């Protein structure tokens, strides 16, 4: 990298263009990756427009609990057990935090 020329003035010009640069766009979290696959059923950001329950607005604790219970079979479901069994404890926490973080 240090081989490349970086005229300071140029750097400055670029910096002033960068007002629209969104630092958060640079890194996509594991939680987002896991949670985006729920959206086909639960709606984008969990805002389901139809019969499948919304996830948006629910607490991390609620989502985490529900997923754990679907996974163990303690909570009845038509399809959620078949999905929840695909995720580890850590992944469930990441997912629950991601959805709760959208509130």
């Amino acid at each position, binding site marked *: 990298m240090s081989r490349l020329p970086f005229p300071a003035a140029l750097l400055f010009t670029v910096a002033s263009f960068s007002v629209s640069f969104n630092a958060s766009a640079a890194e*996509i979290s594991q939680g987002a990756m896991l949670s985006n696959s729920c959206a086909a059923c639960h709606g984008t950001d969990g805002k389901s427009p139809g019969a499948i329950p919304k996830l948006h607005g629910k607490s991390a604790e609620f989502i985490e609990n529900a997923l754990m219970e679907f996974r163990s079979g303690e909570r009845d479901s038509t399809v959620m057990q078949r999905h929840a069994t*695909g995720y580890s404890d850590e992944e469930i926490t990441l997912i629950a935090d991601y959805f709760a973080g959208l509130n």
Partner: protein
Amino acid sequence: MMNHINRRQFIQLVGGGSVLASSIGLVACSKQSTTSGRVVIIGGGFGGATCAKYLQRFDPDLDITLVEPKQNFVTCPFSNLVLGGLREMDSISHSYEAHSKRGIKVLHTSAREIDPTGKKVQLADGTTLEYDRLVVSPGIDFRWEDIENMSPGDAEKLPHAWNGGPQTVTLRRQLTAMPDGGTVIIAPPANPFRCPPGPYERASMIASYLKQNKPKSKVLILDAKTKFSKQPLFMQGWEALYGDMIEWVSGDAGGRITGVDIAGRALYNELGEEHAGSVVNLIPPQKAGKIAHAADLVDDTGWCPVNQRTFESSRHPDIHVIGDASLAGAMPKSGFAANNHGKVCAAAIVSALHNTTMPEPSYVNTCYSLVGPDYGISVAAVYRYSDEEGIYAVKEAGGVSPGDVGPDFREQEARYTRGWYASITSDTWG
């Protein structure tokens, strides 16, 4: 301000992180300095429309262009409900207004040619688009050559209705016009093809219509395969709802169709046996959409090999192929899968353009099918990626709906089938 920008971000800013030296030259004169890269997407179906939306969500500074000839996309999912009289065409049509509102450029024309070295796409209207990354999600094309005497021009007589749109209407019209006591023939192709449970949901929805309106009629499925998706559940449901109205003929019992007699509205098998029907729905064998062939993105299977972690083509760098056209390991060719590819691919592209680490991909699919208006079944899976296996299904997860449940469970899944349609179409086009 300077302090908040490290060198890596600087690189992302000017050149999408690709070729630094040439990017610096662009700073003064190119609008690249305000975008983090140019992404062109060919095809606004389940794969392409989702990818465009999620690219924009991951990185609002991207310059995104979606190329799709249709003003309104008519989904294949729920087109079987239109055939059964449960839905109108309007309710399965989706516009690109939400994409435009997000700042995605939507061009209603088609891509004619891709130049993978110059990184350009030529459009049918004469425009040329340059890209840093290209996403190709063109869906399917048909292997007409595999069926004797069949050609695309026969669609009015023998609509396949395997792309949502006008042929769905033609097929519906034929069903409403047929006499009571007639036979509807459905002939599904061998694997792999778009939507493995689709032909059997179609048989179900047609039987639902016939039972109410033309109860002396029959549905005959002449299958190239010897088994099919969710077979025990479909057969259980058919018996419960339609008695013996639906008959399925396996590929090894004369079901495999090799040719058509268009004038006689008949299909014949390898033994030369003919089956004529009042309505004949031959679903031809399939391959990746035309542009994928034209752009040398296919291998000798007729589908597009990709790195299944990023969906980048194995044949041309910086071009990603998603949806039905791609070879996506254990995932079936479904709208759900294409929607999922769109998100994983968007994450891969944004991570590459920003030189950041892509999160480990996670993929999901569920195919809901309606056996009757209030009778739903499903097959689900969660997938992960490994270098050895590509996309593989997580063993502990997934599976089909249970066999030993009562009508309440089926009714609930029918409700969720409709809920799924509302969610996935808003996730894709909303």
